[in-house]
């Protein structure tokens, strides 16, 4: 009876509502995942976390459970496959100490592995387990339950019909107790057993799939919400990483572009360049400095950074080409002392080796730097080096996400791109991101007579007038000067 009523309510909640009240949700304890889920897991409902072995599904479930327990929502962990000791280790790797929560009666570990020597003869049910759980739920007023490796339970049953019946009973049991439940299920490569889990997908109110793949020798983990009854959710695949601070998901490519409008104009660091740009760069926009090696891209970016620092603004310089020390000493030659700005906290240079980690980790570091430094401007030197994070696609993802975050926060984003050939115009687009760049400045070397001249042209400057000619410039020990012709 109660179930029928609840289902009717569920239907209403999941119906064609537009602005009606969203269903109650429980935070996952993972900020990025809460964003993707529009607030968290459905409270009092069942969420299915599926994925292959090693995909991180148990870790996500564990993080939700432990964070909940720490926040005053006691939880039970039912383990059908792993030993308690292994789970404790998993928790420790996420920075949690289970015993402390257990002592406070906020967490209970239930080892539900069946004796492997037990003989199975005829039908049975999991009433024993449920009776034990019922007692614990009452004793600790549990609100959350994580059923890890629910598939191991399914393997006990010899027919799909019984599997379904037992699962259905378990589902009803969970709903009747008002528990917010997470079930992890190991999935096999799709073709093998789709029907087996199709039923599970149907039963759960929220289905999340995680996987782990290796592309270009770098491992990436991804998460995707397959369905969420009665709620909106982010529909993309979201990369995530697991480290000692827990699970980090970076849901940057959100469905809505919430870019801020460009801010006021500001100096590029050279008065003559400001003139060419019709008054300077607009703050909070994206700028691409493209050109051949040695054309003066880094110098130009540093001149900007210095000018910004002297105005009292903060700049984050993400360097994939050289160390902070070597950059600082190199910039002394064109008369751009950066050390004083670093000391006053106006400039932060972070050097990363592109191939040292996958794109998710790079992104994670970039976002961490952005949060820590809270800069008004970000410089990425160079996007051409980002390909070494794995692939062109990886570089594109990284740059798009960094750019989006900057635009959402109203941070100016300067990308430096090193082009190799002479046909610069074809190359300049820089991993296909040029369409979303507001201002493009092209720098080049040109042999004139016995010497090499540096030239610059403003190729694009969205929303403002700009010069359309090549201009010759020179790098001196006092900065970058326009050569008057």
């Amino acid at each position, binding site marked *: 009876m109660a179930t029928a009523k609840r289902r009717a309510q569920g239907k209403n909640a999941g119906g064609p509502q537009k602005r009606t009240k969203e269903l109650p949700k429980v935070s996952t304890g993972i900020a990025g995942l809460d964003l993707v889920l529009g607030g968290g897991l459905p409270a009092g409902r069942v969420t299915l976390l599926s994925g292959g072995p090693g995909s991180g599904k148990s870790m996500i479930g564990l993080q939700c459970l432990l964070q909940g327990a720490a926040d005053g929502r006691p939880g039970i962990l039912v383990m059908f496959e792993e030993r308690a000791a292994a789970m404790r280790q998993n928790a420790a790797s996420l920075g949690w100490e289970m015993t402390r929560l257990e002592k406070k009666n906020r967490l209970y570990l239930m080892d539900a592995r069946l004796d492997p020597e037990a*003989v199975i003869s005829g039908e*049975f049910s999991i009433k024993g*387990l449920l*009776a*034990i759980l019922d007692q614990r739920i009452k004793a600790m007023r549990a609100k959350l339950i994580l059923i890890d490796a629910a598939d191991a339970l399914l393997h006990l049953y010899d027919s799909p019909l019984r599997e379904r019946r037992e699962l259905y009973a378990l589902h009803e049991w969970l709903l009747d107790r008002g528990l917010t439940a997470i079930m992890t299920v190991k999935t096999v490569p799709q073709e093998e057993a789709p029907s087996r889990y199709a039923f599970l997908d149907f039963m759960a109110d929220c289905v999340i799939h995680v996987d782990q793949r290796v592309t270009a020798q770098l491992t990436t983990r991804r998460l995707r919400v397959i369905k969420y009854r009665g709620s909106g959710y982010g529909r993309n695949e979201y990369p995530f990483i697991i480290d000692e601070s827990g699970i980090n998901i970076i849901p940057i490519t959100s469905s809505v572009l919430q870019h801020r409008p460009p801010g006021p104009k500001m100096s590029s660091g050279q008065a003559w360049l400001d003139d060419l740009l019709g008054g300077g760069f607009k703050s909070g926009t994206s700028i691409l400095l493209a050109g051949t090696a040695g054309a003066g891209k880094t110098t130009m970016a540093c001149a900007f950074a210095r000018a910004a620092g002297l105005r009292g603004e903060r700049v984050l310089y993400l360097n994939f080409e050289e160390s902070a020390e070597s950059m600082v000493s190199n910039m002394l030659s064109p008369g751009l002392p950066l050390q004083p700005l670093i000391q006053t906290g106006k400039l932060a240079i972070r050097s990363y080796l592109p191939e040292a980690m996958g794109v998710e980790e790079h992104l994670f570091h970039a976002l961490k730097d952005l949060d820590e430094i809270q800069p008004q401007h970000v410089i990425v030197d160079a996007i051409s080096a980002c390909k070494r994070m794995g692939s062109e696609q990886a570089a594109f993802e990284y740059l798009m996400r960094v750019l989006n975050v900057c635009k959402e926060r109203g941070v100016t984003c300067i990308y430096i791109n090193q082009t190799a050939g002479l046909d610069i115009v074809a190359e300049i687009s820089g991993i296909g991101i040029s369409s979303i760049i507001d201002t493009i400045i092209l720098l080049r070397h040109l042999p004139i007579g016995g010497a090499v001249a540096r030239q610059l042209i403003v190729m694009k400057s969205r929303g403002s007038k700009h010069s359309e000619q090549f201009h010759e410039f020179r790098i001196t020990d006092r900065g970058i000067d326009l050569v008057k012709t």
Partner: protein
Amino acid sequence: MKARKRERRREAKPVRETHIFRLFVAGNESNSSQARRNLARICEEHIKGRHKIEVVDVLKDVSSAHKNRVLVTPTLILIKPLPKVIVLGNLNDTEQVLAALRLNGDER
């Protein structure tokens, strides 16, 4: 190793020892009732007068279920003679149950 040990024990004390069973059930659900009937019949036919059956209802005695790690019902545990045997299910397959409890061949 284990198998050989088991063998020896059986030869030493063949059939005379009393069989002690503990059967965990969940109230009167049909599988539990079937298991009770099946066990009673098997004992009657094969080890008449030499058995003890203790029935535990997990819905009433949760701590005993917990202590014995009984997760599914019905669960039958052969406590004596050793080694311990665990059989899950309603015990409908008599041949299989007899083999598991080492009762096949005793009377034949």
